[in-house]
């Protein structure tokens, strides 16, 4: 057997197995607490930002997207997208809100799981945002 063919025969099944075994999104229980007077506040994203949302998965937070504050967790302020969807992905897919500490995305809040999910690569993404008041 030629080496190239042998390599293909070896790599193809391994690649398939890797696709089959995407690691699960890390989650830990989190309490979302509404903040009085903050429910109407929102942010607008001023520049596209690529963000890692799961092992090997990226999303773009697009310029012009608006996110409304829905409360706080221990990690930061939680913003839900307005008129669009946002998800994080691993073995499964979860609707998610972004958690901001100032202008840094420190993780994601999963509303169905009531859980916080940190960035998979541990890297926090800085967003360029403008705050909107009600």
């Amino acid at each position, binding site marked *: 057997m030629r080496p190239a063919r042998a390599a293909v025969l070896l790599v193809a099944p391994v690649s398939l197995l890797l*696709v*089959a075994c995407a690691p699960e999104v890390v989650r830990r229980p989190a309490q979302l607490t509404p903040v009085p007077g903050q429910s109407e506040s929102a942010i607008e994203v001023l520049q596209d930002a690529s963000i890692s949302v799961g092992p090997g998965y990226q999303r773009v937070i697009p310029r012009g997207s608006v996110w409304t504050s829905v409360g706080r967790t221990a990690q930061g302020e939680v913003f839900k997208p307005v008129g*669009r*969807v946002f*998800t994080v992905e691993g073995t*499964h*897919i*979860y*609707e998610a809100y972004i958690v901001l500490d100032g202008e840094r995305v420190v993780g994601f809040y999963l*509303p169905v799981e009531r859980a916080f999910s940190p960035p998979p690569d541990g890297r926090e993404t800085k967003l360029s945002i403008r705050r909107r008041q009600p």
Partner: protein
Amino acid sequence: MTIMRRLVPLLLLALLLPACASGPKYTEVMSTLPSPTPTQGRIYFYRPSALGAAVQPDIKLNGQKIGTAKPHGFYFVDRDPGDCVVSAATETEKRLTFTLEPRQERYVRLKIQIGVLVGRIVPELVDKAEAEEELKGLSFIANPLQ
């Protein structure tokens, strides 16, 4: 041999066509669909691709079967607000979780993904604008449980 070369694609096409949805198109039925009650939300399910057409697992919402992943088809269910878990299982189960609010419309694309032995259906939450564009060419499945 030449005849066989012509026949094989036709036979493959003939095998594929019955596997696809064949009702009226989204653009034809959209205006005739009843609105959900004010206290409920609506979830659309659709599969835009015929790739892996033979793979048509059950689609479950909160553990209850609501239809299958029929290629080129779409259907919807109205539900009370709350947490939603959509699942599809072939050689492995893929899940999608999201919340549903009153009068809210949600769109779930059923994407085919390569698997080890058979394809997998991955339910994805999609923006309305993107979903409506993809739905235009799809056929309405009035009775998704049949």
